[in-house]
């Protein structure tokens, strides 16, 4: 795998802000109407917010009945007006939030489906390279960060800018001169806020890094507690812990100190601006209502700037999330169908390897010049030490990987020319480590393909593979709950379920990577019996760890370090007196018979 692809997988390939914006826009295009609607409502909202101080201004002037000469009726209108504006305004706020929420969730939903689907399409070797956790983060959280960018961050930036503009306009309307003086304060808050947010962003980053370092350390210490205690390193680990703990505290204090200067400073400027309003009220001959309105407007003048500085940090975070997400979406699966790939409905089951070479990394051959030929309906077994390449042969047949040299043919067709889906449909794989999903027995056998199979179908298959007995004993039978990874079932039971899963899919070729785990004798005999039955389904390839499974195989292939050493039936191989014979003698020598 080359560097370009690796950097895409891990999401480190850089993208410009405009590329990211453009691509993200593609996802929100369908919601653009609602987005614009939300912006329109936002403008109305901000404007209404600006009118409230005006109402208060009128009220203050009116309530000075001596000068205004008004009556209580005016007060009544103003009061009711205030209530009406508040209610209408809040109604719009509700509307706007819900429109954005709905659109945002819709975008997230669609994006998640896309990303999940994309991950499912990726090749096994690509998935092996990525930690599961990082894929999960991409599907679950980065998608929501991305939609947040439009529904939250951008909207709040817009709202804050509009608010500043709105407040400024109102101030100019009331007193342009006083507004100019307020501008001095605004500029100071502006400059200070941006420097501060930059500084604090750094501190926060350090804090996050320290926190994750702390958690990693703690996780490691707790997991390795046995070693620490056995090697009597408690004191040293305590010192290391104290150091990390102190780092967190000192970084926190850094942030606390920064905020302890910044926040009071901004509020200091706010109160100073009020003092300035009072001071200039007489020089500029403002009315009492003007002063009250200014007082109210000022409370909305500085906070949008603080929020704006915050939003900038959010923007950078959204940027990284999007970058990683798009990088992942740009990964093309390694193993792809050829454009003219054939859809094979049913295989006869003839399998041939012609001089196959395979390596995960360059020249480090796992398989070398492997050739063999298995006829339809035959059972073939692979024998050899760990690392001899047995399991690799099986993954090449189902195209989890592609061989570097040589050909693999099924029914005389190169597997590369067969559609991957039809290939895998025809081949039933029983993997060494049986993976069960949380759900029910049934959902694990059908793998959520509930429409295609009736309970009866499923039960029949379970009987066929001898799984019916234990399933019937379970509370709920086919609907019995299976917890994560099937930990409430024994290894043998899990194996039987994996058989059932395979047989239900009606394959013509069966692949079995036999598990090495210890299984109680009763289940063991059930498994053996069911394996014998399955041999009749079609061609069967077995990676064997138990010799009893393979004695009756039509072809036994002995591998060593990726090369085929011997091949033949049990009897033939015994006559050759080679490796297989040695193995057999060790097991079946009468002196060691058990």
């Amino acid at each position, binding site marked *: 795998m080359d560097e370009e692809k690796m950097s895409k997988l891990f999401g480190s390939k850089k993208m410009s802000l405009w590329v990211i914006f453009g691509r993200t826009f593609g996802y929100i295009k369908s919601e653009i109407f609602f987005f614009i609607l939300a912006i329109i409502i936002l403008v109305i909202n901000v404007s209404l917010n600006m009118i409230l101080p005006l109402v208060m201004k009128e009220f203050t002037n009116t309530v000075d009945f001596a000068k205004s000469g008004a009556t209580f009726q005016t007060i009544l209108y103003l009061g009711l007006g205030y209530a009406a504006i508040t209610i209408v305004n809040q109604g719009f706020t509700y509307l706007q939030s819900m429109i954005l929420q709905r659109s945002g969730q819709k975008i997230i939903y669609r994006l998640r489906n896309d990303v999940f689907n994309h991950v499912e399409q990726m090749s096994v070797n690509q998935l092996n390279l990525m930690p599961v956790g990082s894929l999960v983060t991409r599907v679950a959280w980065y998608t929501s960060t991305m939609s947040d960018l439009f529904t939250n961050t951008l909207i709040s930036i817009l709202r804050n800018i509009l608010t500043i503009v709105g407040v400024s306009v109102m101030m100019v309307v009331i007193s342009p001169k006083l507004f100019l003086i307020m501008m001095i304060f605004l500029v100071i808050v502006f400059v200070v806020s941006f420097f501060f947010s930059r500084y604090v962003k750094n501190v926060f980053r350090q804090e996050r890094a320290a926190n994750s370092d702390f958690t990693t350390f703690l996780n490691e210490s707790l997991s*390795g507690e046995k070693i620490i205690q056995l090697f009597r390193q408690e004191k040293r680990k305590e010192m290391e812990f104290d150091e990390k703990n102190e780092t967190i505290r000192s970084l926190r204090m850094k942030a606390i100190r920064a905020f302890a200067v910044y926040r009071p400073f901004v509020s200091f400027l706010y109160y100073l601006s009020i003092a300035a309003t009072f001071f200039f009220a007489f020089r500029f001959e403002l009315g009492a209502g003007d002063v009250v309105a200014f007082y109210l407007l000022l409370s909305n003048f500085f906070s949008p700037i603080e929020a704006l500085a915050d939003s900038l940090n959010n923007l950078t975070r959204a940027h990284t999330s999007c970058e990683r997400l798009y990088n992942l979406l740009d990964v093309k699966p390694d193993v792809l169908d050829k454009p003219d790939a054939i859809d094979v409905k049913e295989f006869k089951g003839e399998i041939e390897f012609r001089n196959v070479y395979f390596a995960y990394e360059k020249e480090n051959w796992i398989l070398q010049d492997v050739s063999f030929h298995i006829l339809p309906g035959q059972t073939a077994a692979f024998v050899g030490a760990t690392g001899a390449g047995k399991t690799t042969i099986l993954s090449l047949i189902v195209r989890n990987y592609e061989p570097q040299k040589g050909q693999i043919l099924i029914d005389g067709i190169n597997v590369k020319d067969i559609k991957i889906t039809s290939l895998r449909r025809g081949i039933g794989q029983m993997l060494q480590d049986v993976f069960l999903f949380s759900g029910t027995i049934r959902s694990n056998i059908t793998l959520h393909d509930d429409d295609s199979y009736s309970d009866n179908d499923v039960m029949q298959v379970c009987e066929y593979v001898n799984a019916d007995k234990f399933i019937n004993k379970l509370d709920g039978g086919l609907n019995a709950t299976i917890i994560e990874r099937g930990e409430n079932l024994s290894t043998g039971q899990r194996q039987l379920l994996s058989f059932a899963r395979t047989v239900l899919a009606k394959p013509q070729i069966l692949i079995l990577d036999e598990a090495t785990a210890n299984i109680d004798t009763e289940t063991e005999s059930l498994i053996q019996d069911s394996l014998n039955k399955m041999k009749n389904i079609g061609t069967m390839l077995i990676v064997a760890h138990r010799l009893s499974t393979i004695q009756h195989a039509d072809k036994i292939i002995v591998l060593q370090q990726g090369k085929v050493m011997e091949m033949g039936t049990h009897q033939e191989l015994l006559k050759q007196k080679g490796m297989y014979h040695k193995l057999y003698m060790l097991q079946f020598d009468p002196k060691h018979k058990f």
Partner: protein
Amino acid sequence: MLFGKYINKFYKKYWYLFLIGIVTLIVIDYVQTLIPESLGQIVDMIQGSTAPKEKEVMDLVFKVVMVAFIMAIGRVIWRLALLSAAARIQLGLRQDMFRKSQRLSQTYLHNNSVGNILNWFTTDVEAVDDLMGWGTIMLVDAIFMSVLVIIKLINVHWVLGIIVIAPMILVVVWGSLVEKFMSNAWDRSQKANDDLYDFIQENITGIRVIKAFVKEVQQLHAFSKVAWKNREVNIKFARLSVLFDVLIEITLGIITTLILLFGGYFVWMSFKNEPLFGIKIDSGQLITITGYFTMLIWPMIALGQIFSMRSRAKTSLGRITSYLNSPEDIVEPENPVVLDNAKGEITFNDLSFAYPENDTDCLKHISLTIKAGESIGVVGKLGCGKTTLVNSLARLYNVEKGKILIDGVDIMDMSLVSLRKALAYVPQDNFLFSDIIKNNIGFGNMDFTLEEIREGASFACVADDIEGFEDRYETKVGERGVTLSGGQKQRVSIARAFLMNAPIMIMDDSVSAVDIKTEESILKNIKEKRAGKTTILVASRVSTVSSLDRIIVLNEGEIEAFDTHENLLKISPTYQKMVMLQALEGERG
């Protein structure tokens, strides 16, 4: 504020910080009420019949500037005092918790997942410290600010005061209701998020199965369902939270309207010289009252939130307390026997063992003696008790039935330090720390020289591998040693134990991922470099142990035989069976 066994000492330690912070908060709360007063005064001055004197105006402006100044200083002080107290409590609490973790037994660690314990260290400690810092601030603020403002309100106009205060009580009730309601809704939305997360996690982990059975489409459907539910729940949550916000804003708007209407009416009547309730009130005072009202909003809402914040912190502290209170079962005996320079003779005396959560014994009546300096193999089928046997020797679990003696001393009577000095252990899981190789090999003593570390590496036959790495002994091994192969990890962990130079070395299935040649070299090294010292090798392959002095064959927790390789071939059926089966695994045997 929250009290408890493990938290009170911090109050004692940092009382001055709390005192400074709380006093400043109260001063500031008082000073802050001067602002609405000033606003009323300026309104009066402007609307007054005679033009105000320059000095009057300057006094007022000066007052506001002073208030601004005092508030800025005060805010700096309470932030520093109370928040740093909280940060120190966090530090102290975590320190206590980590010290506790160093004394936890394997039993405890098995019963409590690392993830859970991590949560206590992070989320729960944070909840407590949040309450200590911000909780204190909110509480003091809410109480004093509202008391001050209410007194002032009543002073200005008691009827208007009641008109403001009565609905504010509604806001408090409202706030606490919202908190309760919202935290339920929040839990539901978190659960939907967790479900989604779990689904993705599980399906990506099991994706090989999905691909093998070509069920990608069905999985996508199943995923869509979960994602759809997530979407619905999140929208519901958003609707609730927006609705509550909007309703609280509307309530506040209506209270403002009430002030405007009633206040306006009172001023109107005062203007007509028919003051209601006999109180004359002017426009300036009315404006002051609206100012007071704005000051009341935040503390009232906060008051509602404090309750749920406190109950969260209380639950968290409960978890932390029960963790810190958890009994320690591997403890120093009352009169510990100190054993220096152990020779390495081990005696098992009718040892039976059952894991705490299990009734059946995994070891049954084990009695045997290993002579000092012997090299011993332990074999048997999976789950026959091999690891349990060596684990109880290391007292990772307490010996309850029967006895284990080292040099004639019961390990339950021995000081833990002596016992652990006498033993070097290579565990089955080969746990390595994310550190450089040098520090992993020299884990038992940071003073080892590079020379000694090299010697350990060459004993474990991992020196050549390490020399092949770009940074050699400075190579970082990644979390749990992921960057090393299984065999390399095993050998690094053998080197780590070897360097301890202990009279007894235990290797629990430590060469299973090592190839046959290397295994032979390691066995040769054991013979040469650990001559005269006891070495116990648990193995799954017969080849590993066949050359050792004697071999223990375990069968379902019982000793089937304890003899030399040659004799075992004759007398032990399990051993014979293993010899044959393992020969089939490949060219070994």
